[in-house]
C-alpha cells in the first residue's frame, strides 16, 4: 500500500515489477491517496506526504500480532517476516502452550512456559541457539 494511485501501480507492475517477478505482483497493490489508512496505522509521514516502510502481521481474527517500521532507504527482510508469521502460526496452533525463543525458526526447539521452567531456561536453551548455524 502506498499513496500512489492504482494507475501508477499498474504502470510500475506492468513495466518494471513484472520483469522481476514472473506473472507480476501476485497480491493486490493497494492505493491510499491522502494517507488516511496509513494514518490509522501510525506510519504516515505527513511532512513528506508518503507512507514509511511499515509492515504489519494480522492474524485470522484480525488482530495485529506484530509490526516493523523502517525509514525509506532500507529495504525489508522478507524471510524475517515469513519466520515471524510461522512463529505466530505455531503459537496459535498450540494455543499458547508453546513459545518460540529468540532466533527460533521451523525445526528449532520451542519452550513450554510453566512452573517447572521458571529459572531453568538456561538448562534447556543455549544462547548459541539464537543464531543461525
Amino acid at each position, binding site marked *: *500500500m502506498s499513496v500512489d494511485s492504482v494507475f501508477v501501480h499498474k504502470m510500475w507492475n506492468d513495466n518494471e515489477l513484472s520483469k522481476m517477478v514472473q506473472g507480476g505482483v*501476485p497480491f*493486490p497493490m*493497494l492505493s491510499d491517496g491522502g494517507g*488516511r489508512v496509513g494514518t490509522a496505522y*501510525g506510519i504516515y509521514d505527513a511532512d513528506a506526504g508518503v507512507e514509511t516502510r511499515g509492515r*504489519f*502481521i494480522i492474524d485470522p481474527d484480525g488482530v495485529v*500480532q506484530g509490526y516493523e517500521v523502517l525509514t525509506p532507504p532500507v529495504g525489508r527482510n522478507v524471510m524475517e517476516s515469513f519466520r515471524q508469521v510461522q512463529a505466530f502460526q505455531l503459537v496459535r496452533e498450540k494455543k499458547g502452550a508453546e513459545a518460540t525463543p529468540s532466533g527460533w525458526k521451523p525445526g528449532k526447539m520451542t519452550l513450554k512456559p510453566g512452573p517447572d521452567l521458571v529459572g531453568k531456561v538456561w538448562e534447556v536453551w543455549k544462547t548459541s541457539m539464537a543464531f543461525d548455524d
Partner: protein
Amino acid sequence: MPEEFKPGCARPTGGPVGEEPILTEKGEEMEKTTREVKQAMIQVGKKAPDFSAPAYHQGKFINVKLSEYLGKWVLLCFYPGDFTFV
C-alpha cells in the same frame, strides 16, 4: 471477496471503515479531506483498523476490504511510493 470496479477520471481512494464522523460546530459532518486526524502507533494484540482501498491486482482494478480477509493471515506492507528502488 474483492470486487472489480471500472475506473473513471477521478483518482479512486479508500479509507478506514467505520470511522466516527467528526461534526463541525454547526453539527454537520466535516469533509473527510479537511479533518485533522490524530496519528498514534497502533498496539500489538489489538484489532487491526479495518479499511477499504482500491487496488491493482493481476490486470484488474478491485476494491479490497481488510475484514474480507478474516480467517487468513495477512501481511500488510506500506512503502513510500512506486519506483522507490528498495
